[in-house]
C-alpha cells in the first residue's frame, strides 16, 4: 500500500468501529509499526471527536418526541400482529378462520334466497331468449355444447308444454340454464337449472317447495347434480300442475 492510499484511508478509518473491515487491514498493520502514522491518526481522531461532540450536542426541539408519539397514536395501526408472540398469532389466526367460516356459511345460506329472488326478478321483466326452438332435445344439445347444465330432467307435466327456447345465464359467475315454456292461455313458465353446489342452501329433496316472490310463484327442488327452480307468473294456475 503506497503512501497516498494510506493517507486516504487514515482519514476515514475509525479505530474500534472499522477494525473488522478488510479494507483497513493493511492500514492497521502499518499503524503498529509506524509511530508517525499512529500520531497522525491520533490527531485526526481528536479533531473528529471535537467536531462530533459539537454536532451531537445539538438538541432536538423539546416537544419533538411528544409530537412523534402523539402522531403515531392517530396515524398508525397500533397493533402489529407480526410482532406479537406466536401463541397470540395462532389465536388470531383461529379467530380469523372462524370468522371466515361464519362469513362463508352466511353467504352460502343466503345463496339460494338471492338466486331465487334474482331469477324471479328476471322473469318478471322482458328479456330475449338466446335460442328459439320447439325441440326440447335440441335445446339440451345446445346447452351441452356450450358447457352449460344439460343433464337435467324436465318434469313430465312440464314436458307436455310447448318449449319456446332457452337462455344461457350467469349468476355469480356460475352457469344457469333457462328453459322457457309456453302455455296456450296461462302465460310462460320458466325452468332454471343450476349446479347444486352453487346454492347449497337450496331445498335438498326432490319434493318441490313453493314460494311466492312478488308476483312470481316459484317451486324449487334438488335432484341429482342440479337444483331446479320453476317460475310462473300466472296465479290462477297452481304451480303444482307443472310437476
Amino acid at each position, binding site marked *: 500500500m503506497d503512501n497516498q492510499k494510506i493517507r486516504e484511508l487514515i*482519514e*476515514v478509518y475509525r479505530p474500534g468501529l472499522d477494525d473488522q473491515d478488510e479494507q483497513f487491514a493493511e492500514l492497521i498493520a502499518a499503524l503498529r509499526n509506524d509511530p508517525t502514522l499512529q500520531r497522525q491518526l491520533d490527531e485526526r481522531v481528536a479533531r473528529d471527536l471535537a467536531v462530533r461532540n459539537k*454536532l451531537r450536542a*445539538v438538541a*432536538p426541539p423539546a416537544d*419533538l418526541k411528544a*409530537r412523534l408519539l402523539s402522531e403515531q397514536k392517530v396515524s398508525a395501526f397500533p397493533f402489529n400482529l*407480526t410482532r406479537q408472540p406466536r401463541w397470540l398469532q395462532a389465536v388470531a389466526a383461529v379467530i380469523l378462520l372462524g370468522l371466515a367460516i361464519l362469513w362463508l356459511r352466511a353467504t352460502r345460506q343466503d345463496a339460494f334466497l338471492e338466486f331465487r329472488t334474482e331469477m324471479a326478478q328476471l322473469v318478471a321483466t322482458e328479456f330475449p331468449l338466446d335460442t328459439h326452438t320447439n325441440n326440447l332435445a335440441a335445446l339440451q344439445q345446445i346447452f351441452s355444447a356450450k358447457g352449460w347444465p344439460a343433464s337435467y330432467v324436465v318434469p313430465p307435466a312440464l314436458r307436455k308444454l310447448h318449449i319456446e327456447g332457452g337462455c344461457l345465464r350467469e349468476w355469480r359467475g356460475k352457469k344457469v340454464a333457462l328453459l322457457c315454456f309456453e302455455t296456450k292461455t296461462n302465460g310462460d313458465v320458466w325452468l332454471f337449472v343450476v349446479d347444486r353446489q352453487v346454492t347449497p342452501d337450496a331445498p335438498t329433496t326432490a319434493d318441490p317447495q313453493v314460494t311466492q316472490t312478488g308476483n312470481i310463484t316459484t317451486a324449487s327442488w334438488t335432484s341429482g347434480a342440479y337444483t331446479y327452480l320453476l317460475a310462473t307468473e300466472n296465479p290462477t294456475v297452481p304451480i303444482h300442475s307443472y310437476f
Partner: protein
Amino acid sequence: MDSGKQPSFEEIVESHYRGLYQFALSLTGAEAEAGDLTQQAFFIWAKKGNQLREISKVKSWLFTTLHREFLQSRRRQSRFPHVEIESVANEIPPLPPALVNELDGATVLAKLRQVDDLCQAPLALFYLEDLPYKEIAEILGVPVGTVQSRIARGKAQLAALLQTKEAGRG
C-alpha cells in the same frame, strides 16, 4: 434497546429520534424542516415498518427513509456522480481540536451546511452515527468508496470553513 425482543414504537422513537433529527438538521439547516423530516420518517415506519424482516436494521431503515424523503423534498432527480476515494486530492488543513471546542454546536452545524451538497449527508452520518460504511452506503444509495471519498472531501472543506474568522467568532 434489547435486541432479543421486538421493540415498541415508543422504544424505537426513544432510541433514534435524536440522531435522526440531527441528521435531518445537517441536511436541511432548518429546525422546522428537520422536525418534519424526522416526523415523516417515523410516520412511514408506523405504516410500513412491519415489512422489515430484521429488527436490527431499524436504524438503517429510518435513516434511509429520512434521507430519501429529504431527496424527494428537494426533487433531486439526477444521479450523483460516482467518485472513488483515489480521486480525492484535497488535503485536510490543520485544525486544532481546541479551535473546534471554542465553537458551539450550531456554528459547527452551520459550517457543515456550507460543505458541498454531495458531501453533507455522508459527513453528517460519519460524525453523528457510528455506522459501518456499508450501512452508510446503503442509506445513501451509493458505493462504499463514494461514501468514503465524500467524507474525506467534506472533512477537508469543513476544516477549512471552521478556520475562517466567522467561525472563530462563533
